[in-house]
């Protein structure tokens, strides 16, 4: 079983990338489980024809107790048999979403839900607290993929997540490593080179460059992944390539986060 987690700045395209990756993996004949770890709960929407599935936390809230939950209550089958789970969480501005992620993982463990050829964890933008580092902990994702564009703020977030990975990977028995950097392009000049250099500087590599393409928008408006909506498009081919590379990837690194000045100088060097 392979467990991977996608982290990156909010709005960078983690959910789009995760959903397309899961779709492409399933087309390889793999049993895929995608777990959305964000109270916004829209990670798996494109795999579910636009449906917002009930979240684990919704069910806990409604029933007042998680003991009665079953696998069927929380796991939903989407495109090409990809199984989808949304952790969910509290309403914005109240409670503790991080604790919600921890509780969700405990429930999924108890239900024996975390079994598949590939488990894809799609995690909220920044690792703001221990709860959102849960997917990196022992027994869960062993490979983290950072999703970033060439924008400074996006690289900054990716660099911060490296801090969490390197901290967690220093623990005894921890097997969490950085699998690579995925560039989800914003169409900036020399963006591919910048992200590739960033990946190299933190001691990793850019595993995939995903160009910006209008078809992503079109697919989303049609409530589908690109892989489902435009299976013969170039963009779908890119996601399939990403899926293959991740399955073949043997390079796992403990990243070395950059100092802020170093990161700014790097981005500045590509700005002309």
């Amino acid at each position, binding site marked *: 079983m392979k467990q991977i987690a996608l982290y990156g700045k909010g709005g960078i395209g983690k959910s789009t990338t995760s959903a397309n990756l899961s779709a492409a993996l399933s087309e390889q004949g793999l049993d895929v489980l995608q777990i959305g770890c964000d109270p916004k709960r829209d990670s798996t929407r494109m795999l579910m024809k636009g449906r917002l599935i009930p979240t684990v936390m919704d069910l806990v809230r409604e029933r007042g107790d998680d003991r009665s939950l079953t696998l069927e209550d929380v796991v939903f089958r989407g495109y090409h048999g990809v199984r989808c789970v949304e952790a969910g969480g*509290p309403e914005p501005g109240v409670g503790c979403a991080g604790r919600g992620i921890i509780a969700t993982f405990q429930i999924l463990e108890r239900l024996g839900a975390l079994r598949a050829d590939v488990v894809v964890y799609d995690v909220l933008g920044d690792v703001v607290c221990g709860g959102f580092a849960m997917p990196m902990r022992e027994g869960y994702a062993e490979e983290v993929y950072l999703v970033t564009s060439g924008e400074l703020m996006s690289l900054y977030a990716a660099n911060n997540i490296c801090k969490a990975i390197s901290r967690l990977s220093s623990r005894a028995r921890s097997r969490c490593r950085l699998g690579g950097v995925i560039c989800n392009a914003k169409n900036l000049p020399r963006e591919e080179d910048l992200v590739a250099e960033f990946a190299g500087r933190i001691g990793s590599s850019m595993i995939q460059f995903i160009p910006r393409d209008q078809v992503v928008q079109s697919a989303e408006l049609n409530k589908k992944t690109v892989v489902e909506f435009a299976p013969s498009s170039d963009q779908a081919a890119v996601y399939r390539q990403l899926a293959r590379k991740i399955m073949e990837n043997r390079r796992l690194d403990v990243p070395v986060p950059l100092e802020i000045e170093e990161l700014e100088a790097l981005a500045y060097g590509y700005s002309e």
Partner: protein
Amino acid sequence: MATPNDDGCTLTGALSVTTEVARCVTIIHGPAGCAHHNFSLLHALHASRDFAVPPPVLSTDMTEKEVIFGGEQMLEEAIFRAVEKGPDLVCVLSTCVAAVIGDDVGAVCRVPSLVPVVHVPTAGFLGGGFLAGHIQALISLSRFAGRCEQVPSVNLIGEKTLEYEVEEHYREVVRLLTLLGAPVNVRFVCGATLDGIRRLGRASLNILRDPSMRPVGDHLYRELGIPYIDSFPLGLEGTLRFLERAGRHLSIDPSAAVAAEEALQKEMIGTFAPLRRKRVTFSTAPKAPTTEYASRFGYELAEMLELEVREGGKPVPLPDPFPVGTSGIRRLLHRWRRKCHA
């Protein structure tokens, strides 16, 4: 690193205040355990003071579900249930968990209600310990008091409600004030009522239990314009000076009271003649700050009784807190006499 001796929890300190107020329901917003271990302590101490009925304390019984989704709604429900019991007052004490997840306890308490609802912020992890909770609760409750015409009288501020000799200390202060002809207006907070707290402003002098209560004394001075003396009387000389200071504040000539008390002290010391010239050593709890302060009073007594204080003497206790007034010293000397078999 802190040891269990150092500080305790702000929650316990605040609870020692709010549970003293008559017809006040205290809600602890947090997991049941926070309420339970504090309540057990109170219950045991109250039982030892022969209080048959434990004070009304409710817990919101926060669980993981409320941690994740927020606990404000359950707090609203708990306040509703508390108000239904028809108390004069509801106090809401917060806990670590409520503060970590960011429940806005203050805002929930500000929702208009049939009885006043007071929020006392008591998340222990924010630091401060028992004393900070004690102070915070007194300051929070003092909001019911307003400025009014003062009459020559005294408020007793910050008595340590969990102290064993709290009533003995109180009676001694009353005895001394009676020598001056000054009445007690309100005890804040031993056995207080909401009406009593509202009348705090009538006193012309606040007497603090000990100097740790200065933040409360300062607050009441700012809000109500009442000056304070920062400690109950300690030691023989200290008790006489206390009468003088209190008299000055109350515009009462203390000379008759001081003379009477001095005579009483002489007579009292006389009854301990069998202790004279004994060889003793002071035994104190192993807490450094106490030793110095209590030993001052210890040496005062040693001088009076011509005791020889040195290693190898009979160990005699110097308790913390030091007993209040002349009566306190009489009780202490009884203990010393037993220790010396005199």
